[in-house]
């Protein structure tokens, strides 16, 4: 493997890892703060990708579809929290699994009813469709670099929000002691609703960004969900840093696995997880 193809694989690993981070961070936040295991999280990724597909064909602009899609997903997230998830806080994890699995079936069938079961491509905006030449024969698409850039900005914003803002402080406090935050006069339900909507929007945004690269297809949500679970397990539940680290690790393992051992590329990520479990069952970045 020469230097340029190695570089391309490294860039692909980082891009894939960062995209996974957007999905996994929402999953780990919703679990860490609200104590909810959400199997439907991958479905939000899928809905995001299909929204990008649908809104791009409607409006003719990919950027506009993202600008319209994100507020829409924030609203959908808040509505779902209000209508369904708010009833799950006191429930057993199993019931959470069950309800959110039911939601997956609903989302997948709605997708099938509205958009059909075909694979669709989404065009990246024209001004991003260029490629940077690498060496004599290879090149790297600018759009993938833009994905990585957007993810890094968003990750930075997320850390700032959680660590430096008043809302972030309330979110962290709420994850420790829900009742205490409430009795200090803050509306904990509103805080939870915000976190949930944020998680939904992050997953959907990841789906929108991924749509031009991976195209949109049935089952894309489930695939991302399970990899995100692996990331959360490796990184430690509730740890955003852990999710970032684990997402990049998984990005590299998956991308280079596909190059070196194509037959076993699907398995590699899980072997990685098994190794981490033996070493630190609570995840690498867990506080316990």
């Amino acid at each position, binding site marked *: 493997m020469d230097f340029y193809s190695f570089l391309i694989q490294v860039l692909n690993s980082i891009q894939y890892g960062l995209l996974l981070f957007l999905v996994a961070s929402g999953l780990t936040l919703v679990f860490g703060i609200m104590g909810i295991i959400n199997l439907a999280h991958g479905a939000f990724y899928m809905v995001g990708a299909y929204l990008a597909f649908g809104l791009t064909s409607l409006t003719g602009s990919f950027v506009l579809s993202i600008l319209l899609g994100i507020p829409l997903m924030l609203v959908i997230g808040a509505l779902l929290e209000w209508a369904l998830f708010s009833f799950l806080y006191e429930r057993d994890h199993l019931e959470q*699994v069950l309800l959110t699995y039911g939601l997956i079936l609903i989302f997948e069938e709605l997708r*099938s009813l509205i958009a059909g079961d075909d694979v669709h491509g989404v065009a990246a905006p024209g001004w991003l469709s260029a490629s940077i030449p690498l060496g004599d024969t290879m090149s790297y698409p600018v759009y993938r670099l833009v994905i990585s850039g957007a993810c890094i900005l968003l990750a930075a914003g997320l850390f700032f929000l959680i660590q430096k803002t008043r809302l972030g402080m309330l979110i962290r406090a709420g994850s420790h002691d829900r009742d205490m935050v409430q009795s200090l006069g803050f509306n904990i339900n509103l805080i939870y609703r915000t976190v949930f909507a944020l998680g939904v929007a992050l997953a959907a945004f990841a789906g929108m960004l991924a749509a031009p690269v991976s195209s949109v297809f049935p089952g894309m949500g489930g695939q991302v969900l399970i990899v995100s679970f692996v990331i959360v397990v490796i990184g430690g539940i509730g740890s955003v840093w852990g999710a970032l680290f684990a997402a990049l690790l998984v990005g590299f393992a998956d991308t280079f696995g596909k190059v070196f051992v194509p037959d076993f590329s699907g*398995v590699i990520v899980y072997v990685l997880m098994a190794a981490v479990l033996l070493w630190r069952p609570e995840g690498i970045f867990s506080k316990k």
Partner: protein
Amino acid sequence: MNFPYSLWSKLILLAALLAFPALDMPFYAELVAKTLLFGLFAMSLGLLVGYTGLASLGHAAYFGIATYVVALMTPGYEAASFWLTFPAAVLISAASALVVGLFVLRTKGIYFIMVTLAFAQMAFYLFHDTALGGGSDGIYLNARPDATLFGSKLIDLDKPLHLYYLIVLVLVLGYLFLQRILQSPFGRVLAGIKSNEHRMRSMGYPTFRYKLAAFTIAGGIAGAAGYLYAVLFGFITPELLSWHHSADVLLMVILGGMGSLGGAFAGAVAFIAMQEIFSSFTKHWQLVMGVVIVVVVLFLPGGLVAIPRRARAAFFGGASDE
């Protein structure tokens, strides 16, 4: 005779199952057979979820591995021996569960759910991506196992009737076995682990080993169900190991109500009935299924087995936890 109510209902159910083929409805006989083997599958998971407090979201892996064992042991059109393939399928499924259990049982609660899912996915990709079992296209079981015993062809699995009774027999044996385990001291320890593992450990029980044993047994019984599935339908795909399949069986257990084998069985019956009914009138039956699931979780904690009790409480008043 003075059998308790629950025993009577089971004997009546068994008599109905034994008499069913007399109605001569081959399509429904196959459907009933399918329901029974899923009932066995659900009961094996019930041992983990309902009695030990281990919510596995990867139980289809052991079901699926057994289907591949019988297919791979029957490479051509030559039937393999039932007496060889059945124990092999059960043992290999149990051994896989043992190995996976060594990893997943190090985790608890929500981690356990995610990790069992991830390991099942690993098995899924192993069959999906490699040429081992025909890849994503799946594999046909070209010849049903041969159950010749001491030269006599008393049982012939190519006859649907024989296969039906074999499935009933395995179900009954599986049920009795699980029932026996649960009433043994071993089962009491599992129940203790479910309600308070710390306390069990401080009382000196090696809880990890007990959980591992339960996980292995559940894997073996799921393997028995998977074996019967492969023999009944003769076609095996990696989808049998997929997480949707694992979620389906978990649904059956929760739908029926945890903490009783009968509940898990009832859940399987209800699930397959819903699947058949909904899919008969719409291609998008999963939408209806999804709505049913959401409604059950929100309004029916305790599952189907709680309905009679709730109805009684609603009619006659009084405590609903009677």
